């Protein structure tokens, strides 16, 4: 199983764009992911049609337990990032 990295994505962007250097292709890939991260950090979700949604969810405070010692611990309220794949992506993966 191969792993795709940012470098592979830059390569494809470079091949698909006309008149931009490899460096410029890397710049735009960086800028796209940077914009996504900055938006998510403010708690706003990102919706990419055909791919999926990145959603920041608020988790309530709850009491957890250390499974090794049985000791109760308070898990503070926090925000978590989840990815909800689009139906299009889910279908494409299963065909």
């Amino acid at each position, binding site marked *: 199983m191969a792993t795709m990295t940012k470098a592979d994505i830059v390569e494809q962007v470079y091949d698909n764009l006309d008149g931009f250097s490899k460096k410029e292709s890397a710049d735009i*890939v960086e800028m796209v992911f940077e914009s996504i991260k900055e938006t998510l950090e403010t708690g706003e979700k990102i919706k990419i049609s055909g791919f999926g949604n990145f959603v920041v969810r608020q988790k309530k405070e709850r009491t957890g337990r250390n499974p090794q010692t049985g000791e109760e611990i308070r898990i503070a309220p926090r925000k978590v990032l989840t990815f909800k794949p689009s139906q299009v992506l889910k279908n494409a993966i299963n065909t």
Partner: protein
Amino acid sequence: MTKSDLIEAVAANMPEHWTKKDVESAVNTIFGAMKHALVSGDRIEIRGLGSFRVKERRPRIGRNPKTGARVDIPARKVPHFTVGKHLKARVEAT
């Protein structure tokens, strides 16, 4: 933020010779490439964001909650995202 908002935001931050069309083409290429990788069963690792992989779900027997009828749910694959450590911490703190 939708894909077109993302295109606007990125275009505003790129040098002037980048038209919105160029940015749109780049954004579509990025997500197209990622989709293609997952469809091929490959993992994706984006430093600073997280990683994507395809998980296998075993077949199971489900139930229609309304009627109680058994429903065969076949084995299937689902895309899964794991948020990177750094971004996870940043989101948690907001």
